[in-house]
């Protein structure tokens, strides 16, 4: 279980550091507008950026630079955006994609936004925002999900913090919220609630409102609960003590 959280995010170093675009070729079907005072250039229609580190396709791209055109610090891409970095194991699609080399952030907005990383993938119909420099991630939109091979998280709002240790990014905080129901599913436990909170310090997932915990044949519902990831145990309580409901299915085997 502990491993699950540890390996949840192993990616964000992959956002390029400033000035590391490498050899880059950009094509735009309907030309470019260069704004020297404002320090950006607008690439128009079927834009394709092919660099040593990544490929980006979009209908329109705004590239902000610091000193000169080559010195790109921010990219704003709009319309049928797809970003692909085989080297770094990143694949992203969405309506709008923004990334900042200085701040090490990537933001994808719009319906069906996707951010696939080597060991993790994120989906949202609103926003996916990852800040590598301060170690945060934020998803906001209907049917937002965060998953890897060991864990699945869904909800309207998913946010959290991660820390980098020996090139492995580890989640230290995770918050999930959904006015209908949010879900955290690990290999052994399936958890539902309106709000869920994980903190690495105590290694607990706290569940609030409309709580349902499923472990094997056990189904427990209540108003509040917590799951101890270290011991693989859980506890569910209710505001009204009579409300806690336990259902143990009988196995046929």
């Amino acid at each position, binding site marked *: 279980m502990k491993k699950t959280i540890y390996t949840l995010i192993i990616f964000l170093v992959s956002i390029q550091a400033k000035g590391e675009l490498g050899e*880059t070729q950009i*094509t735009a*079907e*309907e*030309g*470019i507008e260069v704004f*020297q005072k404002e320090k950006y250039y607008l690439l128009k229609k079927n834009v394709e950026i092919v*660099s040593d580190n990544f490929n980006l396709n979009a209908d329109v791209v705004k590239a902000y630079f610091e000193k000169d*055109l080559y010195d790109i610090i921010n990219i704003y891409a709009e319309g049928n955006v797809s970003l692909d970095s085989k080297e770094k194991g990143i694949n992203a699609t969405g309506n709008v994609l923004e990334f900042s080399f200085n701040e090490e952030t990537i933001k994808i907005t719009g319906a069906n936004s996707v951010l696939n990383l080597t060991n993790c993938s994120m989906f949202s119909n609103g926003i996916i925002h990852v800040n590598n420099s301060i170690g945060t991630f934020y998803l906001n939109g209907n049917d937002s999900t965060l998953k890897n091979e060991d864990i699945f998280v869904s909800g309207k709002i998913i946010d959290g913090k991660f820390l980098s240790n020996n090139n492995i990014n580890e989640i230290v905080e995770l918050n999930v919220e959904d006015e209908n129901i949010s879900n955290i599913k690990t290999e052994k436990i399936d958890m539902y609630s309106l709000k869920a909170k994980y903190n690495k310090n105590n290694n607990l997932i706290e569940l609030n409102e409309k709580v349902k915990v499923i472990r094997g044949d056990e189904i427990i519902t209540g108003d509040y609960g917590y799951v101890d990831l270290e011991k693989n145990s859980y506890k569910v309580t209710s505001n009204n003590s009579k409300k806690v409901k336990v259902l143990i299915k009988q196995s046929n085997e």
Partner: protein
Amino acid sequence: MNYLLSLQRKYVISIILVIVIISLFVFGYKSMNASINLDEDISININNSDITKPKFTINSENQKISISANEGNFLNKNEILLKNDVVFKSKKFTIFSDDVIFNKNQQTASSTKKSRFISSNTSILANGFEILDEGNKINFYGKTVIKLK
């Protein structure tokens, strides 16, 4: 009696008429040649440029862009068509093109011919360009390729 005076009058008139016709023919021929030469002169004038090796400058608060070409023709009071190896050069960039229209009054320039933009670690190839806002805005037209290093 002089023999010449003995010539019949009608022969004398015929000879004079022949001489006049020949003279007219020769004169007409020479006049035609002269008009052909005139046409040639005019066509030469059209091909010639009004200015050779013209040089201009676009001055703005942020930069100074020097413009040079091999030939230039005045299109009107403000516009000049710059031709053959037109170069726009500033501290930040250089643009190479042909057939650029430069507007002295508005300090703008535009071309619909293939243009090459070179600046630090950057090259742009486009099917034309336009310099606006005293050089602060540059538009590149058509399918454009940028190479960054």
